[in-house]
């Protein structure tokens, strides 16, 4: 590493090159679907090329080496000297993984180890043209030197890069095209400096005898090769200097001599070379990617800063809430107006700041084509993955947090959902199964769907399994409806596959998936039809920082229940409850809902408090189960900013955090699933 680089540049590199690397992962999978896509090949080539270039500057030689050999492969591919096949993809795909690992190393401050030489060698072996399509073998390249203008003329529309190279090679009296491929082997050659005479001849040929010689010219390819072939294909400093001298006269700059001849001129003066210039331009075109260049309209900001801003906006929201509360009681008109104004502005600010933290879910979706491809290949299944709604925005933290559960569910869909091709055929389905992964915004939350057209779930099998595993007795199992049965797969230690595959976990996964989603204040639902397929629906809030809650009072303390889990609220005569299986229940529309007194759990010394006759009941849902909580008072909805509990209180069961309420008091935010687990000893 030659330059003294501040860390910032390294960080920049990691972020930007990391994005390119993520993109490469996607592009490579796409490439397998459309191996002939020139633009894609170019994009991949450029991706490796760019990472290599940047890595060189920050002194990451291991990255440079690996990217370099991948780049070589794609150079061959984009020139059409080799076709993309599965074997090649199997060799190339791990490269992005290794690069990811190297990035991780660098992020952790470790200098990455050079890649396995065997892999490098393997990849390098792909960086050769296929035997049957070497440039030398291309028929058009056969003609001898002076016939080239014609030959390129006839093929002007569809000449490829390597044909062009071959023509150039053919022009230099029998020099083999191998020079192109073996850059390190110097061909025994006469002189490696282009001579004045040669150069004069070249210019004469280009522009016609005696014409202006110093013009910058786009189309002198046939004669540049004598020098190119003379030794290695790398140019030295001195040679370059000599070349400039030759081109523009000793010591003169091209800018001072070249001004008089616009590029169009050679076309008129020298037809053959102009034709070649066109041919050359034709070949250059595929190299340009289609997408329009993006003006730099973005600024990179450290996430930490956004977190700080979010936090401060949170505080502001709290103050706003307090003022709004005050306004309601007694304030003068002017003040009330100002507070109303503040209210509006704060809400807008809150939304804007939230948006700065939004990222398209694409960031997570992007890795799935690869996951599905690899998994399907190893299971010998045929699965196509469809993505929808990749542009849906979601809080950055959520995007990261949802990745693992999603991977698990998608792997599950491929592993357990989609059947083997033969089996599918027998059932009259297409051999290839489909997994659909989609995201969409639904009001204030995001809906993620993972759908497969596989075997679906058999409620009966799940029931049996639950009994077998001792999760419940037969009676209880028989009482479960289909939906409840599907939810059994989220129970800890529940796996319906007889043989455990190392692909989608050992039955420890699904319960983790569920609890992870619950931690994000989200929920997951299953729909399944036997023989048709299954669908997992995940609902997530747009952001984790601000939580709509239902404020309730127990004793004289305020508590907040996440609104997402609240189903309904009603008053009831508390004496009219029933007892089923030793559990107090309330009948809601014909269904028995377990009833709990939150006061007994959360307020000291109220366990024996006398029960009143009527009470407020809040029905909350956990997964697909409903539970009723009896509370003393209902305050209403409030958007609260979640503040973590102090270190002393960390790990308090059933409490997700705290917040400052509109009247300046502190309210604990309840974590319903955890609370039920801790106090009711179930769910």
């Amino acid at each position, binding site marked *: 590493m*030659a*330059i003294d*680089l501040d860390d910032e*540049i390294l960080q*920049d*590199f990691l972020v*930007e*090159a990391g994005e*390119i690397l993520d993109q490469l992962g996607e592009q490579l999978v796409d490439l397998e679907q459309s191996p002939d896509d020139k633009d894609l090949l*170019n*994009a991949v080539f*450029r991706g490796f*090329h*760019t990472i290599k*270039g*940047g890595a*060189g*500057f920050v*002194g990451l030689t291991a990255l440079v080496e690996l990217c370099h050999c991948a780049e070589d492969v794609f150079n061959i591919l984009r020139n059409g000297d080799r076709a993309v096949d599965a074997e090649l993809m199997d060799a190339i795909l791990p490269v992005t993984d290794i690069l990811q690992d190297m990035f991780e190393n660098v992020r952790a401050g470790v200098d990455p180890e050079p890649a396995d030489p065997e892999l490098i060698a393997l990849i390098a072996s792909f960086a050769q043209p296929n035997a049957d399509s070497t440039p030398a073998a291309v028929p058009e390249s056969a003609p001898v030197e002076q016939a080239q203008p014609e030959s390129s003329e006839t093929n002007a529309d569809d000449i490829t890069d390597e044909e062009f190279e071959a023509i150039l090679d053919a022009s230099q009296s029998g020099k083999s095209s191998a020079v192109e491929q073996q*850059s390190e082997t110097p061909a025994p050659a006469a002189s490696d400096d282009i001579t004045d005479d040669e150069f004069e001849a070249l210019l004469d040929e280009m522009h016609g005898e005696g014409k202006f010689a110093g013009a*910058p*010219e*786009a189309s*002198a*390819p046939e004669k*540049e*090769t004598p*020098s*190119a072939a003379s030794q*290695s*294909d*790398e*140019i*030295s400093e001195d*040679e*370059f200097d000599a*070349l*400039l001298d030759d*081109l523009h006269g000793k*010591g*003169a*700059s*091209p*800018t*001072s001599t*070249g*001004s008089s001849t*616009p*590029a*169009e001129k050679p076309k008129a003066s020298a037809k053959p070379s102009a034709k070649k210039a066109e041919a050359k331009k034709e070949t*250059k075109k595929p*190299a*340009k*990617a289609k*997408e*329009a*260049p*993006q*003006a*730099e309209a973005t600024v990179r900001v450290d996430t930490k800063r956004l977190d700080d801003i979010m936090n401060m906006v949170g505080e502001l929201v709290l103050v706003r809430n307090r003022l709004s509360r005050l306004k309601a009681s007694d304030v003068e008109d002017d003040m009330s107006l100002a507070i109303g104004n503040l209210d509006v502005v704060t809400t807008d600010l809150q939304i804007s700041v939230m948006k700065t933290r939004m990222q398209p879910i694409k960031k997570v979706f992007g890795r799935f084509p690869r996951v599905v491809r690899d998994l399907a290949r190893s299971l010998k299944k045929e699965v196509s993955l469809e993505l929808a709604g990749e542009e849906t925005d979601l809080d950055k933290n959520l995007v990261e947090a949802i990745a693992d559960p999603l991977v698990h569910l998608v792997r599950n869909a491929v592993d357990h959902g989609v059947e083997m091709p033969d089996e599918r055929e027998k059932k009259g389905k297409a051999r290839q199964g489909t997994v659909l992964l989609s995201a969409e915004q639904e009001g204030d939350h995001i809906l993620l769907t993972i759908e497969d057209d596989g075997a679906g779930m058999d409620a009966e099998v799940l029931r049996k399994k639950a009994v077998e595993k001792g999760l419940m007795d037969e009676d209880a199992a028989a009482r479960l409806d289909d939906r409840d049965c599907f939810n059994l797969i989220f129970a800890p230690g529940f796996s319906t596959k007889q043989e455990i595959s190392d692909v989608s976990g050992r039955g420890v996964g699904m319960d983790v998936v569920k609890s992870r989603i619950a931690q994000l204040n989200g929920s997951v639902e299953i729909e399944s039809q036997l023989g048709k397929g299954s669908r997992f629906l995940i609902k997530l809030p747009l952001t984790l920082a601000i939580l709509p809650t239902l404020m309730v009072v127990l004793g004289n303390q305020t508590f907040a229940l996440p609104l997402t889990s609240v189903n309904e609220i009603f008053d009831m005569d508390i004496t009219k409850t029933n007892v089923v299986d030793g559990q107090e229940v309330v009948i809601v529309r014909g269904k028995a809902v377990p009833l709990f007194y939150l006061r007994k759990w959360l307020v000291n010394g109220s366990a024996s408090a006398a029960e009143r006759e009527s009470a407020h009941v809040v029905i909350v849902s956990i997964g697909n189960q409903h539970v009723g909580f009896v509370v003393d008072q209902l305050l209403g909805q409030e958007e609260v900013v979640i503040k973590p509990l102090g270190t002393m209180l960390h790990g308090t069961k059933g409490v997700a955090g705290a917040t400052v309420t509109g009247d300046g008091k502190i309210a604990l935010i309840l974590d319903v699933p955890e609370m039920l687990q801790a106090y009711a000893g179930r769910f």
Partner: protein
Amino acid sequence: MKILVVDDFSTMRRIVKNLLKELGFENLHEADDGATALPLLQDAGDFDFLVTDWNMPGMQGIDLLKAVRADPNLCKLPVLMVTAEQKREQIVEAAQSGVNGYIVKPFTAATLKEKLDKIFERIDG
């Protein structure tokens, strides 16, 4: 001196700009490929130097060079080409298209200075 740095990789633009700053150049501007650089050069009309990467989406460095040389107002603009390899064929093409110098990645401020000095020597000479 007003300098335009063209590269599609923003980290690279930053690196090049930092190196140029080290050499005392302050008036630095950037563009992310040839297609955005060209109108910038044409509209401003007062750039004194162009540093461009070779391999870019949209418009490649070499095409930018050719376009610059073809524009009567820009044809005198000194151009330094940044490349990843020292491929003779590429360099020769660039030279023939009117490049003033080339520099191979990665490079140091010292190398960059050397290249710049050489270019101005040639222009003045």
